[in-house]
């Protein structure tokens, strides 16, 4: 299999995930939602750049978006609650 945009997407995504975990853990980050938010941003950024083909509906994107929306909603609720 040649290194097409689909493979490039997976390689870049893998590298970004490893860098994110390494960097955030080195900084002492202990909030899981920060990691997940970063993964979401990276996934959508790579998706926009490489535009990989999918075998069927991109369930990862939907799941990540839903989790990200939940994280943001909880943060907003926290701020509003004072």
């Amino acid at each position, binding site marked *: 299999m040649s290194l097409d945009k689909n493979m490039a*997407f997976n390689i870049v995504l893998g590298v970004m995930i490893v860098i994110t975990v390494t960097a955030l853990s080195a900084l002492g980050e202990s909030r899981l939602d920060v990691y997940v938010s970063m993964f979401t941003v990276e*996934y959508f950024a790579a998706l926009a750049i490489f535009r990989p083909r999918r075998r069927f509906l991109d369930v990862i994107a939907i799941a990540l978006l839903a989790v990200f929306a939940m994280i943001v909603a909880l943060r907003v609720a926290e701020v509003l609650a004072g």
Partner: protein
Amino acid sequence: MDGFHAFGASLASFGAALALYSYLLISSTPMTALGIGLLILGLSILLTPTEPMPRRTVRALLEGSTLGLEALLEEVDAQHKAYYVQHDDGRVYTHVPLVSDKGPMPPGLQAGRLIAEWQGEPYLIVLPPGSELVRLGELPEGLEAALSEVLVDQTELCESVTTVHRGDCIVLEVRGARGLIGAGRFIRVMGSLEASVAACVAAAILKRPVRVALERDEVRVRTIVLEVLE
């Protein structure tokens, strides 16, 4: 599942296990995050197609080939339903009775001719759109697995397919059919694109002539009845 997708499934499983173990037992956020990351990467690999040609393109090529056949069927004014018969060269041909229907011609008879004669009746012999698909030699054993491989995985003509055997008939339930051709004569004689490809696969797997006996469309489900002949 090929090796690449098996790797993706393994990575996703390992990631999920690592995330659960790290979160519940050792309470390590970085390890949990790494598990989630591996899960995302594994699922992403699972979603990645390995075929060089987009299936949408394959589908468009199949649909295009039906339009040529549609013109030919119109020209000869074909009225009877076609028989799908596998010949000795491994290809599945369609035998279309042009005047009266006397059943499928024996395979190989007057092969290579466009119009052949059998029992005094003329037959049109053409290659249906799915003919070459069944010659690839990679069809799994078992009709349902082969139909799923060709209709869902190779061509993306539908989302799923299930089969039920009823006597000499095979009833297919095709969900989310995507073939969008308006070739009326082709559909009447050879069946819809999904039915035509399914008949090719059935004729190749069962090594018996097959005919699209009936098609019925409901909401998102197309029921196709294939008649298997002697």
